[in-house]
């Protein structure tokens, strides 16, 4: 089993706010990120797929197919968008980078695993840097303890 990671970039705006909390609580919990006008980041996305090497090609998965799926399923949906308003799933949940990791995992999992079925491909990790000083990773249950 080999783990292949590819990096992508997108830029998006968001605001961290939870309607269930009072205005005062929102300010206390989210600080500057609660600014009603929103703010943006340059996100760095790492997508890790795991599979066996196809002996005919020496590859786990075709890189241009990976790029195509990530562009169609993620980058076109998120790049230069307002995460709170443009993303259906963030009308009801706060677009923290934690939630965004899991959301990107859900967007990619089925198309990648279907396209890479011959190599037993699995989506093993989604890692996001919101800035160069903080990063978040989502590793599904089945890959925990295997990727580091």
């Amino acid at each position: 089993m080999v783990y292949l990671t590819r990096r992508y970039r997108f830029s998006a705006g968001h605001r961290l706010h939870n309607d269930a909390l009072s205005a005062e609580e929102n300010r206390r919990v989210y600080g500057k990120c609660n600014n009603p006008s929103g703010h943006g980041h340059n996100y760095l996305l790492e997508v890790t797929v795991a599979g066996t090497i196809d002996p005919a090609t020496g590859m786990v998965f075709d890189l241009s197919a990976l790029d195509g799926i990530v562009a169609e399923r993620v980058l076109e949906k998120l790049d230069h968008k307002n995460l709170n308003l443009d993303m259906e799933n963030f009308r009801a949940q706060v677009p923290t980078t934690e939630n965004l990791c899991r959301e990107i995992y859900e967007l990619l999992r089925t198309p990648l695993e279907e396209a890479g079925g011959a190599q037993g491909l699995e989506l093993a990790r989604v890692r996001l840097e919101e800035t160069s000083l903080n990063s978040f990773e989502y590793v599904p249950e089945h890959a925990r303890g295997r990727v580091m």
Partner: protein
Amino acid sequence: MIYVTRRAEFSASHYYHNPKFTPEENRRVFGKCNNPLGHGHNYTVEVTVSGVMNPTTGMVLDLKELKVLLEQEVIQLMDHKFLNKEVPAFAEKNPTTENIAVEIWNLLAPKLAHGKLHRIRVYETADLFVDYYGE
């Protein structure tokens, strides 16, 4: 358990090709990477060794040992080489980043005197890397 990682760099050329494919299939599957004259990358290898700390030295292993091993087993073999033509492991299989990671594992695992080889990571570019954990 402590994990110690040492990094090394090498530059090499390669191309992807399967003699069982038609020229048309080779171009379709491998795209630009199928140019038979080859192209090159600056590769970065990260070797991660796990182990327990020696209480006397405060170290898992002597890093110089790892540096020398990497130099002898990997860098001398691959640096400034045409991987398909000059590295025997790639005479019959493509020197993809996947296969390079597995090959480096196979070169280092039997020769590591201290600690346990945990991971080989190979960066082909800053935006593409492969991890291999030995199985």
